[in-house]
């Protein structure tokens, strides 16, 4: 969606078309998207078979089972910590993919840069470790 929007605007730079013509694809896109989304929901409500069970009606979120009556149950803070740690290293890998692909082109400098980046992460890791976040108990 954003791509179309982009293309249309860049086109307008050179052609300077009328406003309505420029944004017509977007309006159409939005309309189609709405029709598809609501259409599918409506289809499943009206046409789909229904077999309700207790397990299906249970509230569900992000890995835990939430008891609807006991909303004040405490969760270990460690869970969040580990999750955030995971996120950081996850993103690190994401950053390393494009680096690995262009490594040959950039050469030695990129290796140094990546080491700097990793060492910063390692410092963070050491800090987290010493603070005792990895000890579960």
């Amino acid at each position, binding site marked *: 969606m954003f791509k179309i*929007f*982009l293309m249309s*605007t*860049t086109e*307008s*730079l050179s052609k*300077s078309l009328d*406003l309505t013509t420029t944004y017509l694809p977007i309006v159409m896109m939005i309309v189609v998207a709405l029709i598809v989304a609501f259409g599918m929901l409506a289809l499943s409500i009206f046409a789909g078979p229904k077999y309700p069970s207790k397990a299906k009606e249970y509230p569900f979120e992000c890995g835990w089972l939430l008891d609807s009556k006991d909303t004040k149950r405490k969760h270990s803070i460690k869970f969040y910590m580990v999750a955030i740690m995971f996120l950081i290293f996850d993103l690190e890998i994401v950053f390393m993919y494009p680096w690995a692909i*262009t490594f040959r*082109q*950039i*050469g*030695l*400098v990129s290796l*140094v840069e990546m080491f700097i980046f990793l060492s*910063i992460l390692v*410092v963070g890791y*050491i*800090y987290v470790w*010493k*603070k005792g976040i990895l000890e579960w108990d």
Partner: protein
Amino acid sequence: MIDNISTIHFLKEMLYLIPLLILVFSSMIILLVDVFAESSNKRYLAPLTSLFLIFSAISIFWLYKYIPKSGVKILYNMVYVDHFSLVISAMLIIAAIITVWISSDYLERYGIAIGEFYSLLLISLTGMILMVSTTNLFTMFVALELFSIPIYVLAGFFRVYGKSIESSIKYFISGSVASAIMLYGIALFYGVFGTVEFSEIERHIFNHYDSVAQIAKTEPLLILGTLLIMAGFLFKTAMIPFHMWTPDIYEGAPTTVTGFMGFAVKATSFAAFFRVVVSIFNTPSLVYSENGTISPSSWINVIYVLIIITLIVSNLIAMSQRNVKRMLAYSSISHAAYLMIAILTFSLSKTKDSYGSLLFYLLTYLFASIGAFAVLSIFEKNGSNSVTLENLNGASKRSPFLVASMLIFIFSMAGVPPFGGFFGKFYLLKSAFVDGSLSTLVLIAVITSVIGAFYYLRVLVFMFMKDVESDENIETLNVPFLGKLAIALSAIAVVYLGVFPNSLIQFMGETISNFFIK
């Protein structure tokens, strides 16, 4: 873009980043020292941090001589180091040094003397310096986030106080919204131009558009982008109506942090906004209508109206505050309006007269504001994390040194002649007035600064003229050495700026005039 570049070239580019590199590595070193240190006594962390900061400052002075006047673009044009960015960086580092000195004892008093404070401060400072040394919207956004997030954490550093946490969360959420808004603006710019580089954006606007009305008709998204980027800055500089976070956060955050962010966030945002204005917003087709007059719907007029609202409203609300930190928050909002006047004057007049006023005002505000918060941090009653006017009763008997310094800071902020603040205001309003088109604004600024004098001087009334009810409360305050040094130096600086403003304002003017070297 990417091709083989030599290692030497890389190292040379790193040379320009030395101030930043020092800050980054020192923040990590302090984090590690803090974690690995055996003893619980960590008094050496503050001197260590300030040592690193001084190293960074020295490297800035060295760079200032080394780089050409037109500045240097490095790292694929992502970072732009020039005299302007170095001057602002130097101010920010001075602010950080003062904050570190004050905080060392303050944190100990609250029992949270831990290294993360300094580390976060340094990371935030890194972000700030990066933000002022770039002409790339995207780097600017990353830097904005880099300095904002540590500040959010620092605001909530008093984990035991509800107000501190509340301010942190409030700052985080509203700040994130503002960042998102700004990012949207950046995205729109990218969408329209396909680039985030200031100079290229300027060229595009210059080549393709003639007037504000034309842009509004053919490319309203550009107007929206301008507005959204501006809104992000207006939030960070706390212009009304984007100011609402300010009082709550200034009140709740640890006082030394308030002092730091009161100046540093403002200075960084103004410096970055100034760059955006100089490079992008000042393009004639974003300001003028077809017949050459300033278009009623240009961003200039928006800022103009916001300045008037901010001046009046912030000063009026500040009068009714009993909490000194909240009062200073509103006062900082009104100072933001003054700084905006400097930017407006710059965009409108282009006479060399107005060049120095923004930076000089920032410099006077640096010492007065951080100094005032530093004094408050010492007067603060243990455990309350806030200072009301009544807390200051009989202060002159408890510590003449602190009260005398506070007098200097307050007079400077109110704009009383022998102090720096007066000349800051004077040069700023003078250049605005000389231009002519802003004379109404100057008039309002002068009238509101009279209102300002009321609430500023009231602090002194409480300090000098009211006595404490019972005698047992009168205890002399022991001002720690580093804190004393920081406050004394700030006071001296404020007086110096008031007595010898000339050479500095010329220096600042030259710094800004470097923008126009092509």
